[in-house]
C-alpha cells in the first residue's frame, strides 16, 4: 500500500465548504431562542455614573436586560491571563480584574456594560439603543511608548506596568559590547494588527433545566480549554454540566483562543432566563473587541566585530497589552518572544527586557506567530542594518553567524534539535536568482523606479509545548494533547482529537497519518473534533501545535491499537505477539503465511466468540472492543526555519511599493500534505506582507479606533501579491516520531522583515515604520532626491 504521508491528498473538507454544507455557529438555531445585543462603551476610559435600563425594559420584545451588577452578584468570574509572569525584581505581574460586563469603569471602546436579550434581533437592537448610561469620561492612555507616563488606568497598577521582565544576562552582554568593534542599533515599532477572521465571533448558549446542563456553541479554537476556563475561573457551571461545541470555525489566527465576555455572559444568562440565547458579532464589533496583535516599541542593539561576527545582543521592548491581560496576553511578549530574539544566530551574550503596559485599547493577545514575528522582525532588521554598515553581503553575514552543528544550544533558552540553515540560505538564493539581482535593479532604474532586495532568515519555536517546561515558567495548564482512535466492528475508524481545525485541514492531514499507521483506506477514517462531549480532553489549536503535538497523540493511539491487534492475532493464529508483524493493514505471523487483516481483528474484538464453540479470539484478560487513547506531551518545541527573499519596486513619484518577487524556502521537517502546507505558507505570507505594507490598527489620542472598518483598515487582497515562489529543505525533527515541524505561522513570522528589508534597501537604508504605506515611502523618496542626503 502506498504511503499517504507526503502526498497531495485532496482535502476531505472541500466538498462541504465549497458546496455550502459547512455548519458554523451562526448556522445553528434552536427552538425558542432569544437574541442578544451588547451595549458597549463608546469611551476608551470612563466611570459609569449611572446605568438606566427602565426605558429599554419597556421596549417591545425584551426578555431580559442584565448588567455588571447582576453578574457581580452571581459571582461570575472574569476573563483571565493564562500565564503568570514574574518581573526581573522577582515580583509577580499585576493584572486588573476583567469582569464580563463592566460595572464601575470601562477601559476601552467596545467594553461591554450590559446585554439586552429579546425575542428578535431587531427588538434587541432597538431596546439596546434605549439603555442609558451616564459616563464620566476620563483621560485615556493610548500610546504604547508613553503608557508608563500616563494616568493610572487600573487602581494599584503603578505606571500601568503589568511586569518588567528579563530573559538573559545583562552583565555578560555588557562585557560583550565592550569588546565590540561596532554597535548597530535600531528603534522599531511592531505595528498593531487586527486579526480579521472571515467568520466573525458568535455564540449560542442553551440551558436544559432538567439536566441542569449548559451547551455553548461558540467560535473557538479550543473548546475544551474554554470549558475549563469558564468552569474553573468563570464559575459559570461545573465542568460536567457545561458542554462546549466549536463547530466549523471560519478562521482564528489566535483571535479565537480566548474565552470572551459574550461566551460567559450568554452561558450565564441562558441559565438565568431558561432560554437559548444567540449572539453574532457585527464586523465593527470584531474590529473593536476581538483581540489585537503585536504592538511593540523596541530599541535593540547588536555588538559586532569588523569582520561580521556577532558578539552580543540586547533588546528593550515595551509591549502593549491593551486594557486587560487575556489568556496568551502575557506570554506572547515574554516566553514566545524573548527566547527567539537572537534568531538563527550564534550570539554568545544576549538579553531581552520587556515592559508590558496597559492602555485603553482592545486587549492584545496571540495573533499568528505570537511573539515570534516581533522577535524575528527585530533581529532581522538589525542584521540587515549591520550588513549595510559593515559592507558585508547580507547573505554572507547571516551565514557567517549561523550555527553549523545540531542540536544547537541557543544562548537564551532553546536547544534546537535539527536544521540546516546554510542549505536553506543557498537554496533560497538559487530560487530567487539572488545573483541576478543587479540586472533587475538596473532595469527598474531605467524605468525611473527604485528596486530593493531584502532577506531574512528565521527560526521559530512552536508546537507548544512540554508541560513541565511551560508550567515552570508560569503557564496555568499543561500543553499536551490527546487522541482517541476508535474502530467500528465493521472496520471503519473514528479519530477523536483535542486539536481544532478552523482552516488547518485536520480532517485530511490527520486522516493521512491514521491511514498510514493503521493501513486503513483514508475514506474509512473520520476525524472528529470540536465538541467537549466527543472524545477526550485537548488543549486546542494554536502555536503550530496541532500536528506536532495532536498528530503525535494520534500516532501513539494508533500504535496502541496495533499492539493490541498483535496480541489478538497471536491468540487467533496460535503464535506469540512478538512474532507478529504489522504492515499495510495486515498482521502477519513471522516465517509463515498466516495473517489477519486489521478489519478482521476489529471484528473479532467486538464479536469475540463463534457459534457452537465456547471459544474467544481474545487472549485471557484482554478487554473486548478496539479503542485506544493516548495523551502526548512533547519533549521539546518544534523549530521550523528558513530563509525568505523579497524584491520590491518603488515608484518614487507616488511612493507606491510593488512586491515584485517573493521567495520562501522553509524547513518544516517531514511534510504530510504538500498542498495543504502550501496553503498554510500562502496564508501566512499574506498576513506577514499585510503587516509590512498595508495593515495597521490606529487609535486616536482619545482611544477611538480610527481603522474600525474595511474602509480604513487595509486588508491585503490577491492583487497585492506576486506569485509566491515556494520551496523547502527538509531536516526531520528528532523529537517526534513523524519528524514533523510546525508550518502555520512561518509566513507571518518571516515576511515582515523580508519585505521591509527590501523596501529599506530600495530607499538607500532609510528607516521607515510598518506598514510601508505609499505616503511614508514617498516622503523617504523625496529625501533621496536631495543632494548630499545621507541614509538616516
Amino acid at each position, binding site marked *: 500500500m502506498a504511503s499517504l504521508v507526503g502526498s497531495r491528498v485532496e482535502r476531505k473538507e472541500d466538498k462541504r465548504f465549497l458546496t455550502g454544507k459547512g455548519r458554523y455557529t451562526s448556522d445553528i438555531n434552536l427552538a425558542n431562542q432569544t437574541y442578544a445585543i451588547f451595549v458597549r462603551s463608546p469611551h476608551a476610559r470612563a466611570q459609569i455614573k449611572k446605568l438606566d435600563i427602565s426605558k429599554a425594559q419597556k421596549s417591545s420584545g425584551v426578555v431580559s436586560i442584565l448588567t455588571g451588577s447582576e453578574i457581580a452578584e452571581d459571582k461570575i468570574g472574569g476573563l483571565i491571563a493564562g500565564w503568570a509572569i514574574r518581573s526581573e525584581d522577582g515580583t509577580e505581574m499585576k493584572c486588573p480584574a476583567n469582569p464580563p460586563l463592566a460595572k464601575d469603569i470601562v477601559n476601552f471602546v467596545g467594553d461591554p456594560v450590559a446585554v439586552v436579550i429579546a425575542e428578535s434581533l431587531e427588538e434587541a437592537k432597538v431596546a439596546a439603543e434605549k439603555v442609558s448610561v451616564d459616563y464620566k469620561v476620563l483621560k485615556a492612555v493610548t500610546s504604547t511608548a508613553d503608557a508608563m507616563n500616563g494616568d493610572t488606568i487600573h487602581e494599584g497598577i503603578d505606571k500601568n506596568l503589568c511586569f518588567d521582565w528579563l530573559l538573559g544576562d545583562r552583565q555578560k552582554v555588557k562585557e560583550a559590547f565592550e569588546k565590540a568593534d561596532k554597535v548597530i542599533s535600531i528603534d522599531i515599532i511592531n505595528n498593531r494588527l487586527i486579526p480579521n477572521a472571515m467568520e466573525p465571533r458568535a455564540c449560542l448558549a442553551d440551558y436544559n433545566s432538567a439536566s441542569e446542563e449548559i451547551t455553548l456553541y461558540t467560535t473557538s479554537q479550543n473548546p475544551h480549554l474554554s470549558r475549563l476556563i469558564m468552569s474553573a475561573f468563570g464559575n459559570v457551571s461545573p465542568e460536567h454540566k457545561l458542554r462546549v461545541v466549536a463547530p466549523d470555525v471560519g478562521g482564528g489566527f489566535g483571535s479565537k483562543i480566548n474565552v470572551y465576555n459574550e461566551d460567559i455572559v450568554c452561558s450565564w444568562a441562558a441559565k438565568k432566563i431558561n432560554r437559548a440565547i444567540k449572539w453574532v458579532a457585527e464586523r465593527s464589533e470584531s474590529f473593536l473587541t476581538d483581540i489585537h496583535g503585536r504592538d511593540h516599541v523596541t530599541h535593540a542593539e547588536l555588538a559586532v566585530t569588523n569582520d561580521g561576527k556577532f558578539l552580543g545582543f540586547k533588546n528593550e521592548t515595551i509591549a502593549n497589552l491593551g486594557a486587560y491581560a487575556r489568556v496568551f496576553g502575557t506570554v506572547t511578549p515574554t516566553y514566545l518572544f524573548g527566547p527567539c530574539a537572537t534568531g538563527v544566530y550564534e550570539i554568545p551574550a544576549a538579553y531581552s527586557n520587556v515592559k508590558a503596559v496597559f492602555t485603553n485599547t482592545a486587549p492584545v493577545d496571540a495573533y499568528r506567530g505570537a511573539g515570534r514575528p516581533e522577535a524575528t522582525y527585530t533581529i532581522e532588521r538589525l542584521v540587515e542594518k549591520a550588513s549595510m554598515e559593515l559592507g558585508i553581503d547580507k547573505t554572507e553575514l547571516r551565514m557567517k553567524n549561523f550555527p553549523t552543528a545540531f542540536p544547537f544550544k541557543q544562548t537564551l533558552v532553546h536547544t534546537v534539535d535539527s536544521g540546516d540553515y546554510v542549505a536553506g540560505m543557498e537554496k533560497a538564493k538559487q530560487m530567487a536568482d539572488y545573483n541576478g539581482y543587479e540586472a533587475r535593479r538596473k532595469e527598474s532604474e531605467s524605468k525611473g523606479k527604485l528596486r530593493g532586495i531584502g532577506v531574512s532568515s528565521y527560526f521559530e519555536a512552536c508546537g507548544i509545548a512540554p508541560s513541565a517546561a511551560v508550567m515552570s515558567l508560569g503557564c496555568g495548564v499543561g500543553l499536551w494533547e490527546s487522541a482517541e482512535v476508535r474502530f467500528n466492528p465493521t472496520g471503519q475508524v473514528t479519530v477523536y482529537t483535542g486539536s481544532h481545525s478552523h482552516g488547518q485541514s485536520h480532517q485530511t492531514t490527520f486522516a493521512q497519518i491514521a491511514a498510514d499507521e493503521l493501513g486503513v483506506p483514508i475514506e474509512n477514517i473520520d476525524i472528529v473534533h470540536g465538541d467537549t462531549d466527543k472524545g477526550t480532553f485537548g488543549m486546542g489549536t494554536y502555536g503550530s501545535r496541532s500536528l506536532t503535538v495532536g498528530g503525535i497523540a494520534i500516532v501513539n493511539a494508533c500504535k496502541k491499537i496495533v499492539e493490541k491487534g498483535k496480541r489478538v492475532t497471536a491468540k487467533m493464529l496460535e503464535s506469540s505477539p512478538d512474532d507478529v508483524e504489522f504492515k499495510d493493514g495486515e498482521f502477519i505471523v513471522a516465517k509463515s503465511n498466516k495473517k489477519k487483516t486489521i478489519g478482521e481483528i476489529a471484528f473479532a474484538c467486538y464479536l469475540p466468540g463463534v457459534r457452537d464453540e465456547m471459544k474467544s479470539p481474545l487472549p485471557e484478560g484482554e478487554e473486548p472492543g478496539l479503542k485506544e487513547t493516548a495523551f502526548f506531551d512533547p519533549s521539546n518545541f518544534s523549530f521550523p526555519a528558513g530563509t525568505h527573499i523579497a524584491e520590491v519596486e518603488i515608484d518614487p*513619484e*507616488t511612493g507606491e511599493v510593488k512586491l515584485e518577487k517573493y521567495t520562501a524556502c522553509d524547513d518544516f521537517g517531514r511534510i504530510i500534505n504538500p498542498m495543504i502546507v502550501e496553503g498554510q505558507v500562502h496564508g501566512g505570507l499574506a498576513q506577514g506582507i499585510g503587516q509590512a505594507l498595508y495593515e495597521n490598527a490606529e487609535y486616536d489620542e482619545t482611544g477611538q479606533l480610527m*481603522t474600525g472598518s*474595511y*474602509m480604513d483598515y*487595509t486588508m491585503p487582497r490577491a492583487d497585492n501579491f506576486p506569485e509566491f515562489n515556494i520551496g523547502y529543505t527538509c531536516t526531520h525533527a528528532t523529537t517526534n516520531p513523524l519528524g514533523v515541524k510546525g508550518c502555520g505561522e512561518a509566513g507571518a513570522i518571516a515576511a515582515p522583515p523580508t519585505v521591509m528589508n527590501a523596501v529599506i534597501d530600495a530607499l538607500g537604508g532609510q528607516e521607515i515604520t510598518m506598514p510601508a*504605506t*505609499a*505616503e511614508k515611502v514617498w*516622503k523617504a523618496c523625496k529625501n533621496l532626491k536631495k543632494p548630499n542626503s545621507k541614509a538616516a
Partner: protein
Amino acid sequence: MKNFNYHSAKDIKEASKLSSSNSAFLAGGMTTIPSMKLGLASYKDLIDIKNIKKLSGIKVSSKSVTIGATTKHVEVANSKELKKTIPSLASLAEGIGDPQVRNRGTIGGSIANNDPSADYPSACIALNATIHTNDRKIEASKFFKGMFETALKKGELIEAIEFQIPEKSSYQKHPNPASRYAIVGVYVAKHKKDINVAVTGAKPCVYNDKDLSKALSNNFSTSAIQNMELDSSDMNSDIHASAEYRASLVVTQAKKAVDAC
C-alpha cells in the same frame, strides 16, 4: 437597520409623487443601504426607481453621450459605443468598487450622493456634463456644491447625464489601499475650446483645477506641469494621506492622464 416602507415606482411621475421629506430614492443602494445598516441614515420610505425603464441606457449623438441615471457601472464599462466615443469614461466605470458594486451601483446614484472620493463627479466636470432632472437641466460646474451636497432639491430626480465628447481624455486614480476609493483621481479632458482637469478625492468636493488646466492649455504635455506645486492648504488630510501628499498626487495623476491621452 430600522424598518421602512418599500415602494417600486413604475414611472418618474409616481416616484416624484411618493417622495417626501422622510424618503429617499433607491437605485443601486450601494451607499443608501450600508448607511441605513450602520444607523447613519434612516427613512420612512424608500422609492425604488430601478424599474423605470426610461431611466436606463446609453445614447450616443455626434457631440455627446447621454447615460440614464439608473445605468449600472458594469453597463457603462462594457458599452461598445462608449468605448468608441469616450473610452476614458468606460474605463473609469470599470475601476469603481468591485464586481458586486459594479453590478448594482448606478451612475445617477453616485452623482446624487457626491461622495468626495467618488469617481463619476470628476467625469461630469471634465466632460462638461449636463445633469438632466425631472425638473431642469443643471451644468456640472453648478451641480456639485460641497461634501455630499448637490444642487438637487428635495424630491428632484436625476434622469440622465449628458457628457460632451472630448478630443481626448483620461482618468487616473490613486486608490485608497483599504477602500479602493480615490485618494486622488484626476480626469483630464481636452475639448476643442477648453481643457479640464477635474480632481476628486483631494478636496471636500470635486473641482476643476485651474492652474493645471491653464498650464495644459498652453502646452498639452507632461512637461508643462512637471514641476508644478499645488497649494495644499484646503486639501483633505486624514489617516490615509496628508494634504501635502494629496497635492503631489494630483500633479502625478494629471501627468499620467496626459500621458495616457
